[in-house]
């Protein structure tokens, strides 16, 4: 398989075929939390793409150059990765605050939330530590570039669904809905229909 084509498949598979929100149910809390308005979901999407790619890069280095050589990866990977993510988020927040105040105003409030966004830990664990990679039918060797491309795919998939869903929910506000289904239940029913649509991609790589 051509290397570039394989990378494309990896990206596409992570973004759409095994979409992290609708097919794998990871990171639903921020999904339902911030999908109320289009503006907030745009801000959240940019921050998530940025932090996820950085988190996976640092976790990859930590796993391959620190945890593995010391032989402690098997039982220290959870605290190590989560600490990496938490401190990274804090660091990114400080850097953005110093260098670009407008960007900080746009992203600032979402950054602390991302620490507990399970998608970040999930993508880092799956793409770095052998034994968790999803059952996409694509050869995967746990290289650095692959990990970053896979994570980018996951993050783009998250953003894509978040933005579409936010636009849907803004319309939903005006729709006539049965009394007990207003609010949370109708959001979930919409997500179910949405997920049904995304299942159409499932046959593509024999997921």
């Amino acid at each position, binding site marked *: 398989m051509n290397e570039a084509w394989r990378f494309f498949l990896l990206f596409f598979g992570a973004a759409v075929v095994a979409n992290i929100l609708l097919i794998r*149910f990871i990171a639903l809390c921020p999904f339902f939390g911030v999908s109320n308005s289009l503006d907030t979901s745009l801000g959240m999407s940019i921050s998530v793409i940025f932090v996820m790619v950085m988190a996976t890069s640092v976790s990859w280095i930590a796993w391959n150059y620190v945890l593995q050589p010391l032989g402690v990866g098997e039982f220290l990977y959870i605290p190590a990765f989560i600490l990496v993510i938490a401190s990274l988020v804090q660091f990114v927040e400080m850097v953005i605050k110093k260098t670009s105040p407008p960007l900080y105003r746009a992203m600032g409030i979402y950054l602390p939330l991302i620490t507990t966004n399970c998608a970040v*830990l999930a993508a880092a664990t799956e793409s770095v530590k052998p034994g968790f990679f999803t059952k996409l039918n694509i050869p995967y060797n746990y290289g650095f570039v692959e990990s970053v491309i896979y994570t980018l795919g996951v993050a783009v998939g998250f953003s894509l669904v978040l933005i579409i869903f936010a636009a849907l929910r803004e319309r939903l506000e005006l729709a006539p809905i049965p009394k007990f289904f207003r609010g949370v239940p109708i959001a979930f029913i919409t997500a179910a229909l949405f*997920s049904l649509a995304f299942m159409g991609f499932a046959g593509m790589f024999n997921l």
Partner: protein
Amino acid sequence: MDKDRTMFGEFIKGFVRVNPLLVLMVGLCSALAISTKVESCIFMGLAVIFVLSCSNVIIASIRKFIPDQIRIPIYIVVIASFVTIVDLTLKTMPAVYERLGVWIPLIVVNCIILARAEGYASGATVPHALMDGLGIGLGYTCVLLIMSVFRELLGTGEIEMFNTTIISLGTKKMPVILILFPGAFITYALLSALLQWYQDRRKPKEGEG
């Protein structure tokens, strides 16, 4: 409020009043993903109960020594240690471990546990925190079981546990959608609508009639 904090009250509140999944809306991800099978839900529920009560107890007992600025990293390290214990324990059962997969490390960032650590255990006594952990954990497990029984029974027509069939409807022609991804959202939406109906009925005077 503090006076009527009885042990039993702390324990029982996790079932309906502050149910983590239906009322607080935290920890949804794992609940929707693994509720396809009753068996995995039992293991996941036990794992969450264990991690939640242990981390609650530890955090409540050291709460006076934790500097305020770095409390979140400390909570996460405490939680991560207990999750590692669960992770290594479940590894001895390869079939279960494979099905729960990435959800075990993800208990660390399961919002239920951090929310209880930050919102409850950081200001409670040790016995109260233990009761709260057990109650919230059991509340989570209960909703998980309701969802998984509904989905597995109606989606596949039978409930299978530990390689034996517990209940069988005697037919295989079932709405498969319930066991697939949209089924999780639909099941949760129904439960949530049911809760709204129940809460509405309990205070009839406040409604418009």
